């Protein structure tokens, strides 16, 4: 395949960025999207040019490191895939592919396609935990959890913290992200004792970090590579109102 790339290049957090254009030959449809970028970077480095900086690590869709806006969609146009799992077979020969970093006030650009997502960590630090110290836990089977609830908690817990929900939302809202964690804990008896404090502190931190309110458009759900459901936001709202 032959492709044309328009990629956002930005030297650092304070510099102004712009699009740069590259052309690549010999792209195989079997390549992953990141392997295509590897090929671009190899050719740049061999010419002593600066490669395109992007975050990536596990390359199996679970660490949440990678994430970029591809042709106007977070993680690209295919539903349910992270950028590292996106295959070049989904693109056409001769196609121009536009690649941008996440755009959100709470995720400032660090370099090229790398953004600062530490705001997510700060929300989790504010309350995304159950307060139990090592050594204090009761025997595991002494706390039974209804299978239906446990399975639902699991479905919420698989968020990888990539930030696609924020990037896809016109309000750059982090509601899907925090609701997934709130839901997980609210569905299990282990999480109930701190439910009120948790939802209050996480929501307040979310506002402080500059994320917008829910836009009610559902873009987050449709773009989430792990297909986390909007029902989590409903649970978040319920937990929030109950906390007053």
């Amino acid at each position, binding site marked *: 395949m032959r492709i044309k790339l328009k990629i956002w290049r930005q*030297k*650092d957090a304070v510099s102004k960025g712009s699009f740069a254009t590259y052309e690549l030959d010999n792209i195989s449809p*079997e*390549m992953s999207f990141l*392997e295509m970028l*590897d090929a671009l970077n*190899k050719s740049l*480095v*061999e010419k*002593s040019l600066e*490669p395109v*900086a992007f975050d*990536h*690590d*596990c*390359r*199996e*869709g*679970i*660490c*949440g*490191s990678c994430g970029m806006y591809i042709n106007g969609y977070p993680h690209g146009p295919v539903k349910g895939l992270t950028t590292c*799992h996106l*295959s070049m*077979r989904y693109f056409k020969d001769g196609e121009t592919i536009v690649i941008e970093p996440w755009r959100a006030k709470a995720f400032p650009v660090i*370099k090229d396609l*790398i953004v*600062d*997502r*530490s705001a997510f*960590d700060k929300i*989790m*630090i*504010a309350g*995304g*935990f*159950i307060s*139990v*110290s*090592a*050594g*204090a836990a*009761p025997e*595991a*089977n002494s*706390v*039974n*959890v209804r*299978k239906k609830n*446990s*399975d639902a*908690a*699991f479905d919420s*817990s*698989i968020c990888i*913290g990539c930030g696609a929900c924020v990037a896809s939302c016109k309000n750059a809202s982090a509601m899907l992200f925090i609701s997934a964690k709130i839901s*997980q804990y609210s569905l*299990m008896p*282990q*999480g109930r004792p701190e439910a009120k404090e948790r939802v209050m502190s996480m929501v307040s931190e979310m506002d402080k970090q500059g994320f917008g309110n829910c836009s009610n458009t559902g873009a987050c759900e449709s773009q989430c590579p792990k297909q986390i459901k909007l029902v989590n936001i409903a649970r978040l709202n319920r937990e929030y109102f109950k906390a007053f």
Partner: protein
Amino acid sequence: MITLNAKIPDGPLEEKWTRYKNSARLVSPANKKKLDIIIVGTGLSGAGAASSLGELGYNIKIFCYQDSPRRAHSVAAQGGINAAKNYKNDGDSTFRLFYDMIKGGDFRAREANVYRAAEVSNLVIDHYSALGVPFAREYGGTLDTRSFGGVQVSRTFYSKGQTGQQCLLGAYSSLNRQIKAGTVTMFPRREMLDIVLIDGKARGIITRNLITGAIERHTAHAVILATGGYGTVFYLSTLAVNSNASAAWKAYRKGAAFANPSFVQIHPTSIPQLNDFQSKLTLMSESLRNDGRVWVPKQKGDTRKANDIPEEDRDYYLERRYPAFGNLVPRDVASRAAKERCDAGFGVGKTGLAVNLDFRDAIKKQGKKAIEEKYGNLFEMYKAITNIDPYDEPMRIYPAGHYTMGGLWVDYELMTTIPGLFAIGESNFSDHGANRLGASSLMQAAGDGYFIIPYTITNYLAGEIRTQRIEPDRSEFDEAEKAVRERIKRLLSIKGKQTASSFHKRLGKIMWDHCGMVRNGDGLQKALSLIHELRNEFWNDLIIPGSDEELNQELEKAGRVADFIDLAELMVTDALDRKESCGAHFREESQTSDGEAKRNDDDFAYVAAWEFKGEDNRPQLHKEHLKFEFVELKERSYK
């Protein structure tokens, strides 16, 4: 010169850890506040240690190279985590778990450490469950388990095929709680570039801030490495592509012995390499072998589609060779058996380097829904990568580099041969001998972090309560920082033509061909000379654009590849020295008539601990002879 003292407590096996805890020294709460601990790595062991030590009141500084601690590669573990709960009433016990690990490791692990890992396994499940980790459950609300390779009981707790993610997020949540409490300070996007010793004790680290390029000094009373394994030495592996050996390697160069470096687990069920530009091999969990049957065609070059090959033309070679364990033989055995079939010409797919993992019978018997419940995300992942739906056609799988049993040598207290430097989780060598059983890496990493290191590091720090906070302006820090800066300068000044990744790829090929699933004396000798040539070329023809005072991913890679090249040499040296087969280390010269690994207990029942003796000198081998007081050394058979 170093001496190895494993410090194993006296007494019967089941009392050693209790006796240790009863006699270990304590530190008062008031003194804990004055003691600083550095932890490198935020996976299951590192995040676990940070939270449990923070809960005790120590001052913790924890580092990771990722942008967030939640991304450590423990996140990718799939199948499960073992514990000796015996919830299935199927005869499990602490001793049974211990014995399975000792046997699974082919009698090359230390009895006392392994027993302790089994002993604390139940506490780990209790703790994760209390932290809200959504393990799979039965309809009555209790925890479910499943089977894994190399054992005949069902002791593996799981969250579908993403148990590592769920455990890691649990560990991340307890880490966050301590960050909020102020006991832990998190330093993301930092790479450890050296360990600093003062009067022979570990007192700090030098890091590079990966955003700004700033070289930073961090001091502490003790340092814990929780930096994972070095499977990425193969370039293509199931590890995260940035996983690296550099922290452990710096420790080795500063005097920490490196144990059994050649013991590397090649996992049998990975999605095969399909092409040359591939950057990563994706694992398909071992748990799939609970329900999937492994086979190749009986006829060489059978070009029929898998589904068109009738039962009588299929060779279920694991069931044929190992009737007692069938598809659930341990990983090393399953990997070698796959290689044997493919090398003999029975492999499938366009490269012939793959075997079938077939769910047809399981789906027929249990229904698609039941299979989806257990493995849904794995099937989806397989389809996303290969464009083949495993509900309709067998998966194609092949072995891939995965886990390193070798690592920094540690004593019973998980301390390396450098006083005050500890190594936990995969970064140490301690619990898995020459082969790790499935679902015991999460178990060991979590056990080390939550329930072992808090006791053993406290015993060490009890002797440090009079040591004032270490100041970073000491000359030892000056020297370490200078060396770090000089190395970066040297890498940047080569200005050759080849990228760090291209060297890494070539190194991986050398190691895969000669120091992978099967090894022999000639091949290993050849590998040594190839590694020497590669190192020479690397230091003369590497290219890194940009500078060190900015985010520079090529510079990061180059430093890691340089260390991998050196480590590869040590791995090959160790593999050459061990002229026996054991576990994952298969020397062709040492096999039984039916092709199984042949151990030599008379000459090799020891841990090989290597001491760095300078760049141009051969490392020195120290032997920790393994004494088996509680189990009988037996031939390891799964037939």
